């Protein structure tokens, strides 16, 4: 048992660290505040997870592919506006399909353009970040759009099995599906390949367009679902809202063990990272912390992870160089010894 644990930790130290951090955060808040350790709080955490988890998942997949999608906040806001605006006319299901479909299509187009033009995703998505805000403002006529029929918000938040609601069940299901997809299909492996070793992947015949389109389509889909859930749950949607999602999702992804160089991390990491952010968020809310102070903690957390990652890369490079130097030294020593041996013999 212990050896099994040891091999697991040494095989995936980032994930082990993430789980440790998450459990510590949970324990900290559970012991410091008696209110935290109630079913109601856990229901609230899962509700929040339904939203942040999707954003974290979207960003995790993008970073695995070696790119960052900056437009998820705008995409989610656009989807929220569309879903809420058309929910009364077309029925909730149709409007969800429409809003999420548009968001997925936007992601797909982004992926295609990135792969076709060979630009970096940050360059394009910082443009679409603004463009989609404009579209959202346009679609909502610069007002906060509202539902008139509140059946759907009620349905989405019905509590069952103590902890769950339709929203959180859907998100958990999506997590499982994406996890299976990334792990067991060729396309999932292609996504890892173009992140970790893009040149090698292209040289061995992976078409950059396909994995890029898949990643950004999933990212758009997740952003769209995130917007739809937020919009329908509160019954309102603002075109300028949801800007904070990018920071939260990035923190979640990096705690979950992705590397900015790509090719590392996974869906379980995204899950654990989001939960960590969630516990922190919920716990701080219990301590009556204003939203901007939560931002400070999130920023510090992100910078700490980045510093650790950068330092470990630097350390690894240095170790590699040292071992290379050692090897050459040893080889030279050997060469000299053999030469000396020969020399002595010849004399």
């Amino acid at each position, binding site marked *: 048992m212990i050896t099994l644990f040891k091999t697991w930790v040494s095989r995936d130290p980032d994930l082990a660290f993430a789980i440790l951090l998450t459990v510590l955060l949970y324990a900290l808040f559970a012991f410091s505040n008696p209110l935290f350790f109630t079913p109601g709080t856990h229901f609230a955490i899962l509700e929040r997870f339904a939203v942040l988890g999707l954003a974290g998942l979207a960003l995790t997949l993008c970073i695995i592919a070696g790119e*960052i999608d*900056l437009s998820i906040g705008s995409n989610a806001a656009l989807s929220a506006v569309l879903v809420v605006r058309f929910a009364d006319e077309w029925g909730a299901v149709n409007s969800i399909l429409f809003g999420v479909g548009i968001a997925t299509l936007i992601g797909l187009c982004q992926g295609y*353009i990135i792969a076709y*033009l*060979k*630009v*970096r995703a*940050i*360059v*394009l998505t*910082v*443009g*679409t*970040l*603004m*463009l*989609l*805000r*404009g*579209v959202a*403002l*346009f679609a*909502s*006529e*610069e007002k906060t759009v509202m539902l008139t029929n509140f059946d759907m918000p009620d349905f989405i938040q019905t509590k069952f099995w103590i902890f769950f609601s339709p929203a959180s069940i859907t998100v958990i299901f999506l997590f499982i599906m994406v996890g299976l997809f990334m792990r067991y299909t060729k396309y999932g492996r292609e996504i890892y390949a173009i992140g970790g070793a893009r040149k090698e992947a292209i040289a061995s015949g992976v078409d950059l367009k396909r994995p890029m389109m898949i990643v950004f389509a999933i990212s758009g889909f997740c952003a769209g679902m995130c917007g739809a859930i937020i919009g329908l749950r509160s019954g309102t949607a603002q*075109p*300028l809202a949801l*800007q904070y999602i*990018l*920071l939260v999702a*990035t*923190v979640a992804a*990096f705690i979950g063990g992705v590397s*900015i160089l790509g090719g590392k991390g996974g869906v379980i990491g995204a899950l654990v990272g989001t939960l960590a952010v969630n516990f922190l968020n919920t716990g701080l809310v219990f301590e009556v912390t*204003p939203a*901007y*102070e*939560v*931002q*400070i903690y*999130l*920023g*510090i*957390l*992100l*910078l700490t992870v*980045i*510093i650790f*990652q*950068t*330092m470990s*890369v*630097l350390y690894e490079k240095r170790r590699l160089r040292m071992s290379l130097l050692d090897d050459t030294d040893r080889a030279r020593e050997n060469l000299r010894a053999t030469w000396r041996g020969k020399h002595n013999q010849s004399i």
Partner: protein
Amino acid sequence: MNAAGPNQFIADNDTRTFLQKFGLRIFLVFIAAVFLYFATTTDHYLTLDTLKAIVRDAALVGIMAIGLTFVTLSGNFFLLSMKETAALCIIAFAMGMANDYGFILSLAGAVAIAAMAGAIQGALIGLGGNPIVVTLGAAGILYGLAAWWSDNLVISYRRPHDAEWLGTGSLFGIPNITVAFIVIAIVAEWVLKKTSFGRQVFLIGANRAAGKATGHENFSMAIKVCIIASICCAFVAVAFSAQLSSAQANYFSSEFGSAGDYTILVIATVMVGGNSIMGGYGSTLRTSLGAVFISSVDYLMVLKGFASGARVLSVGLMIVASIIIFAYLRRGSRSEG
């Protein structure tokens, strides 16, 4: 554009298509024609007052964008913490003014804070951290600090104060902030083109490996360019606060005013100017012209009666169009970004 020498070498095996060779010129002529058509058919647009208003509007975003151009040209993409740096500086400045420290001391405080924030971010970027992620985290911290320091309230100070000349004063009928914009644009262009520091920026941006081989590490360069960008933010924050005689942490966010998020507007300005986002190619003059262009289109749309949504949409279209066009033009000449 520049000497014909290098072009003669590749003239024989130039694989670029006709569109890639002349596309940019055709596109620019087309844009100019459309712009001129609307400009001449809109009343009160082609007047000296409108021109003055356009350049004054462009000044605030333009100064920040000139600072960011250094970061972009040196190959460090862009900083997502521009508006948050400005938010912290505006609070610092207003705190100084409200407590009667005087203009000089308050300005010095704001600039010092900006330089510190820039140096820390630059160091992290220079060590190898991804600029986007580092500045995203820094943005959260800086905004949080600004809101926490001011309790998320508006800080205002009384009208006869010694910063008024910067906010609302004018020189020979030209607003002082416009004068500052023009001076900063000229100085920045001179620094980039004529000093060894400017050439180092281009060298590291164009080819980081060559820069490292010749002893120009990105570490010190990242710190320098981030400090320049942050100090430009501080200056803009001071000028903005001097205009309104007040400050709040969200003055540069999209919730305040209709102009939209300052960070994204600044990045848009750098991109629409046609600077290479991968670094090594571009100039601050292009950035300044980009700022004036965005502002003049915005003004035209205001006169035509468009709401803020359409204006944000148009700026977004401009960014995406410039990204796609420049990427398409370089597709033939550069194998991979």
